[in-house]
């Protein structure tokens, strides 16, 4: 018989003492060629900034490979950690320095558009919420992505990061108008 799973609980307001790492936001070291900043703001149901959230990211490298043994094509290499973590500041803003991922194999031989898996934790979130970053300059790939296809059309735009001077902007609206599409995975 399957064991009782351990329930989720909120990270609470003081997670920064335990979850903040100096190198957390750096999926790749500063100065890496081609590195981009994914920046954004986390807001609540009244549009107010959420200053006590933490964003975690997980993604493939520019070749579409994951630094994990279950990627049958072999691990990503170099200084690419694949994982990023950043707390929000007083204005609810975060930033993750990374490389833009490549397309990734999808179910049934499909190809997924470049994307980054995101978890959001915060005081007031009893469980993380999960979403994905897609990229505005990948319109063709996005149009055939099997996960985006499962998102109601009117919400797909919440997952598309727009180009900025130093990377892309991805805001997270936890609740209300423009609420980000969150996944049951």
């Amino acid at each position: 018989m399957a064991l009782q799973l351990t329930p989720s609980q909120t990270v609470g307001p003081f997670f920064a003492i335990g979850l903040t790492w100096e190198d957390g936001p750096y999926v790749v070291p500063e100065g890496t060629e081609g590195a981009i900043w994914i920046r954004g703001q986390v807001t609540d149901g009244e549009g107010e900034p959420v200053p006590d959230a933490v964003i975690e990211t997980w993604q493939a490298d520019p070749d579409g490979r994951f630094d994990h043994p279950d990627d049958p094509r072999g691990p990503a290499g170099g200084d690419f950690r694949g994982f990023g973590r950043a707390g929000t500041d007083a204005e609810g803003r975060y930033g993750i320095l990374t490389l833009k991922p490549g397309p990734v194999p999808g179910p049934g031989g499909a190809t997924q558009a470049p994307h980054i898996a995101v978890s959001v934790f915060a005081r007031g979130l009893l469980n993380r919420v999960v979403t994905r970053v897609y990229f505005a300059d990948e319109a063709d790939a996005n149009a055939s992505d099997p996960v985006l296809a499962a998102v109601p059309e009117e919400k797909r735009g919440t997952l598309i990061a727009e180009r900025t001077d130093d990377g892309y902007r991805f805001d997270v609206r936890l609740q209300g108008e423009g609420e980000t599409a969150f996944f049951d995975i």
Partner: protein
Amino acid sequence: MTDPTQAIPDLAPYRRAPEGTHPPLLSPDYASTVLRAPKDPLIHVPQTLTEITGPLLGEGRLGELDHDLTRQHQGEPLGERIIVHGRVLDGDGRPIRNTLVEVWQANAAGRYQHEGDQHPAPLDPNFTGVGRCLTDDEGRYRFITVKPGAYPWRNHPNAWRAAHIHFSLFGRAFPQRLVTQMYFPGEYLFFQDPIYNAVREERARQAMISRFDLDETVPEWALAFNWDIVLTGRDATPQDEDEDH
């Protein structure tokens, strides 16, 4: 080099947690959920290679004393010294080896070493309240710390959090990521703690409470508590492509 977009065999997915395992995101007795819980239903999406993998963070992240929260400063912290240990398992009871476990907690007086905690209880210069370790080959973890105090918060009149230690787990794949709290046996504050009670099923709530472990105590030195953490397990076979999305 291989073609990065080559088709790869579909991989067995991780199971979704049964209804009632995790607390509903909107749990109004915990007031902070009211403006932060998404209102739209979560969207059921297929698990792909992105979800079947996940960060495997290893030794590079650990300092020698990260597992011992009582030896990170010049002197020893005040409070009851305790050993907190257990295993990280998947839902089928298999140990999850070599996985990062992160903890953070209040000191014995119930105060966090965080600028946002300004309630009138003393900080302890010998206690930061942060620990990390990796599980061993049997999925075991072990921390030495002091028992955290209960502390007041402003959720409702005279609200107090039940004493707890925050735990962060990665497992081996994105769906296994879990942040939770470990509670202590004999707690008398559960009845008025809306975070604990947001977990609706009694059996699931019990899974957050550690067990006093006499066998693991060290005479004249430390009490001990045992707590196993169970992350979701994995199906034996790839998901059915006809699955209703």
